[in-house]
């Protein structure tokens, strides 16, 4: 397309993308897209419905959806204030704190599980006091939610903090001059502004919770209907019944893809 006089169509027509970009980009896309297709090729379609509707599969699916929803709620309640504080707050040492709270992002999940175990486990730093109070987290569904929230919280914080920084604080400043309290401005100005960032952060957190494996196994254990989520069921089934494991893996991929597609598809319509 020839560059026209209108600046917006000019911006759209000329991308400035070097041609060589396409080769590594295509390689990267193949690297990500082919393995899920590999699962598709291994699915035993004749027994697929039977395999994914078995009692243990349904129990795992229910538990996974329930715990991922619960951990996403926890992430929402804690993550939004965290992102606000990190993006807008003026506190000495905030940058160090920022690096620390994003640690679960780079921590291998098994290590995260061990960290939770040594903190909230029966003999852990906090856990021994909880034990005295009669609260036992290990082997409970609450432990699954904790493990998921621990690993997915940074996803929301990073996503929302980025959106807050991009939006800037000038609208809130205007709202303040018009007499709005900080809480009122947060609710009526900031939140609507960063809603897309918040939504994508929540989707990422939910998807990460759905796929959580290492920290759950290390910290919560594995019992049908209580702590054995879909990824743990897949891991267990592949020992005894690889066909069931593949069918469940596909189910997990489908649920995750549906969640991501739903959120990003809607954003695309805007």
């Amino acid at each position, binding site marked *: 397309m020839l560059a026209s006089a209108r600046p917006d169509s000019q911006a759209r027509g000329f991308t400035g993308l070097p041609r060589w970009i396409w*080769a590594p980009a295509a390689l990267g896309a193949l690297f990500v897209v082919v393995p899920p297709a590999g699962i598709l090729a291994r699915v035993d379609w004749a027994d697929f419905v039977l395999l994914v509707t078995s009692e243990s599969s349904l129990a795992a699916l229910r538990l996974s959806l329930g715990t991922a929803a619960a951990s996403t709620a926890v992430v929402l309640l804690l993550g939004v204030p965290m992102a606000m504080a990190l993006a807008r707050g003026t506190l000495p040492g905030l940058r160090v704190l920022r690096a620390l709270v994003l640690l679960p992002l780079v921590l291998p999940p098994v290590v995260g599980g061990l960290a939770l*175990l040594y903190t909230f486990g029966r003999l852990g730093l906090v856990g021994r006091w909880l034990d005295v109070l009669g609260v036992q987290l290990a082997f409970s569904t609450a432990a699954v939610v904790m493990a998921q929230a621990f690993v997915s919280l940074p996803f929301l914080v990073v996503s929302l903090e980025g959106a807050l920084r991009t939006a800037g604080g000038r609208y809130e400043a205007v709202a303040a001059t018009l007499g709005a309290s900080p809480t009122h401005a947060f609710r009526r100005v900031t939140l609507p502004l960063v809603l897309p960032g918040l939504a994508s952060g929540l989707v990422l957190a939910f998807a990460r919770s759905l796929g959580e494996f290492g920290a759950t196994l290390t910290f919560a254990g594995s019992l049908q209907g209580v702590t054995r989520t879909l990824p*743990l069921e897949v891991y267990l089934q*592949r020992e005894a019944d690889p066909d069931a494991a593949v069918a469940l893996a596909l189910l997990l991929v489908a649920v995750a893809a549906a969640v991501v597609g739903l959120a990003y598809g809607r954003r695309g319509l805007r």
Partner: protein
Amino acid sequence: MKRAVSAALAALVLSTAPLLAGCTPPSGERSLTVFAAASLRQSFTEIGEAFEAAHPGVRVALNVAGSSDLAAQIAQGAPADVFASADTTTMDRVTGAGLADGDAAVFATNVLTIAVAPGNPDGITGLADLSLPGLRLVQCAPQVPCGSAAQAAAARAGVDLAPVSEEPTVTDVLGKVISGEADAGLVYVTDVRGAGGAVEGVAFPESAAAVNRYPIAALRGAREPELAREFAAFVAGAEARKVLEDAGFGAP
């Protein structure tokens, strides 16, 4: 562009191939790749060293994982010379697929035991004590060998076990007992021995209902078929027997 992509793909595959096959041996050295069940890690490291000492110029590369994982890797064409499994069922899958060179031979046995915290604070004396109210028991899921063994032993003893968690591997069970999350766990005798004092073992007679047999076989695709057969024979020999016994394994 298509050519550039396939060239890049080929480069990627070629660059990772040595990693997948373990380390490539320096020229002049012969390398033997042994796939061994996780519970054999310690013993096979020692046995491998003894084999290297008896065969100058030979390097034994050990790949340790769960037996089913290893069998799946072998079925997918992983470069292995010898396979040692923790149970006969998994080995049967490999020999049944025609992947073994000759028959598999059982070289060791292993039985379950109850792992408890050092000093046995709950005073557990046998399987029946594991169903005491409030006692947190962890065992393997019935889908894996250590779990089916636990079920068989419980059936022999006539007790109903209600674990708070059914783990996918025996090391996960051991970990839960060591960390104090669980009060008791059903693991193998060799796991307690390998934990070196972090847990205590309580033997129970019903473990005889489920004895795990460890078979070994040289593999069809071996790059060193002669050496592979020699290693399998070496594992069944007196020197290896001593190492296995020290680790808590029983005689075949």
